[in-house]
């Protein structure tokens, strides 16, 4: 076990007695420090609101931890409201203390700080990891060929998802290039020719983000032929697995058990009672639409 250094090199914190009214820490202070209140009382004053008292600090509490450890700016002026006794821990003191800690304890402190930083960053960051998929999803809710104001649409998307406007604009340009969204006249208005396709595009983007194969673009030739055949049937047509395989065979579309098992993942059929598999034409249409607009979805459309 690594135990850290001897405590001989420690720089001790400074003990101070301060009179009422003494400012112990203010946003103007260049030196970063932690103030531990031993006795008395401190008040936090907001300099932006005529030094209004925001809160009081009681003995045993600290101020300036974020400022010293995370270099965060301090917002308030901390002033002694009565004669008080404080401990001041400055950079050198903290550094010498941290150096004396066991390595693992230092790692614990760093891990907790990093964790808080990550949470705070995630509060500020956009809600959609992939703005392109996010904007596509958002656009799919609008009616086909409805005239929409470009700026208003982007503002609304940005508000709902906290995506910065420049990022949202870039995502829109990508949708325009793929002809999934069309500008009308100048770029102040736009229409969505096929909102359903935007939903499919969003799914494709998400699969790409997860590095997962996206079924519609991974069909074998035989599976594509079966897709076409299934699209001619009535929704809800039901057979058991053996009957479906035989049905394909009768139409010269012989498939292996492995092929059949793979097709189960496509969700073309939903399971019903008595082991019956019922055809889901909505899912078939999803695959067909994806294949029809493959170039738009992949971004190879001219």
């Amino acid at each position, binding site marked *: 076990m690594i135990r850290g250094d001897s405590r001989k090199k420690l720089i001790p*914190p400074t003990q101070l007695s301060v009179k009422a009214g003494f400012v112990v820490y203010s946003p103007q202070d260049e030196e970063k420090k*932690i103030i*531990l209140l031993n006795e008395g009382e401190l008040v936090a004053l907001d300099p932006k609101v005529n030094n209004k008292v925001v809160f009081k600090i009681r003995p*045993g*509490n*600290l101020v300036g*931890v*974020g400022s010293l*450890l995370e270099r965060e700016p301090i917002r308030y002026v901390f002033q002694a409201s009565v004669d008080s006794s404080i*401990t001041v*821990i400055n950079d050198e003191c903290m550094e010498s*203390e941290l150096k004396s*800690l*066991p390595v*693992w*304890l230092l*790692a*614990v*402190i760093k*891990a*907790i*700080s990093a*964790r*808080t930083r990550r*949470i*705070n960053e*995630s*509060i500020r960051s956009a*809600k*959609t990891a992939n703005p392109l*998929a*996010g904007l596509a*999803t*958002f656009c799919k*809710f*609008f009616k086909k060929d409805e005239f929409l104001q470009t700026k*208003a649409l982007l*503002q*609304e998307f940005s*508000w*709902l*998802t*906290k995506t910065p406007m420049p990022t949202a604009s870039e995502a829109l340009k990508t949708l325009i290039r793929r002809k999934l969204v069309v500008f009308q006249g100048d770029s102040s208005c736009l229409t969505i020719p096929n909102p359903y396709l935007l939903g499919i595009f*969003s799914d494709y983007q998400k699969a790409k983000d997860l590095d997962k194969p996206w079924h519609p673009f991974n069909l074998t030739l035989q599976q594509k032929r079966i897709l076409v055949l299934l699209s001619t049937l009535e929704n809800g047509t039901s057979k058991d697995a053996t009957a479906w395989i035989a049905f394909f065979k009768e139409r010269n579309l012989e498939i292996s058990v492995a092929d059949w098992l793979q097709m189960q993942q496509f969700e073309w059929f939903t399971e019903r009672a008595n082991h019956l598999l019922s055809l889901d034409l909505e899912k078939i249409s999803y695959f067909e639409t994806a294949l029809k607009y493959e170039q738009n979805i992949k971004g190879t459309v001219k």
Partner: protein
Amino acid sequence: MNIEEGKILCMQGDHPHSFYIVKKGTLVASFKDEQNEIQTKNLGPGSTFGEMSLVEGEPLEYTVRAEEDCEIEVIPQSLYHEAMEEQPLWMQSVLSFLTKRNHIAQENKRKKEFITTFPSLLFILSKSSDKLIYLKNIKNELKNFSSLSSLETYKLLLILQDFRLIRLQAETLTIENENLINLLYETLRHRAIYKSASHNILSIIEQAILTAFVKAAGEKGEHQPNGFVAVKTTDLAAQTKHSMHGMSLTMRSLETLLQKRLLQASPETSTKINDVAGLENIEKFSADFDKILNLLELNRIYPQLDKKLVVSG
């Protein structure tokens, strides 16, 4: 300690009260996120985890499995307490401050996610073409806008149910008032984007007159072919006086309602106060009755909304 390839070191939800430092090899941490989806991340040499388990005794967030033979340093809570006793008091205060700050950040994140997801939920509902929607579908669509958990999403839906905008069933919800959902969404959108109150938010006087209009229309209103309901000026004035504790109906108090075309005067009159003839020249007022009812309901709900979101969140 050494851990063989494929072995599980700890499970999500365990309370090992320990901190782990990866010395050699790679482990895979997998965890279910707020939406029950499995996420993974690799933990290579130098990676650490379990800090909140060590300091606060919190359950582990990951299930950790060795991807290859690994060497791990495990710090038990007893060693942590022993080490902290050797530290100056202020260092213990610093650590306690850091953990407290972490809890505050987590709580802030959860609350903020809850509040900011509300408009997204309204957006999805306002765009729905069906009145009966599966909760599963709503949650799936909402995933595109938010990482709110299913439980928290349900809490948001309960708020909408309290406002009688939807009705929740076991696996579905029914939209009770789609126009009001739209109005509420548009009002929130306007506030967020234009940083000002939407014209749907009415003054107290406007609300009082429209409430009087609704009452008068209920008692003596005439249905018009365009779907509007008309109320005689004398009836509206009497009802206003009754509802507004003796206050008289004047053209000045009606001005903004006429400008917003929420009320229409017959015979039609200018909406500029200086141009208008007196109230005695107007025979009746008409309005889209459903729209007025929705606006009044919006103005009842809206002031309660922020508080309700904060309290429920």
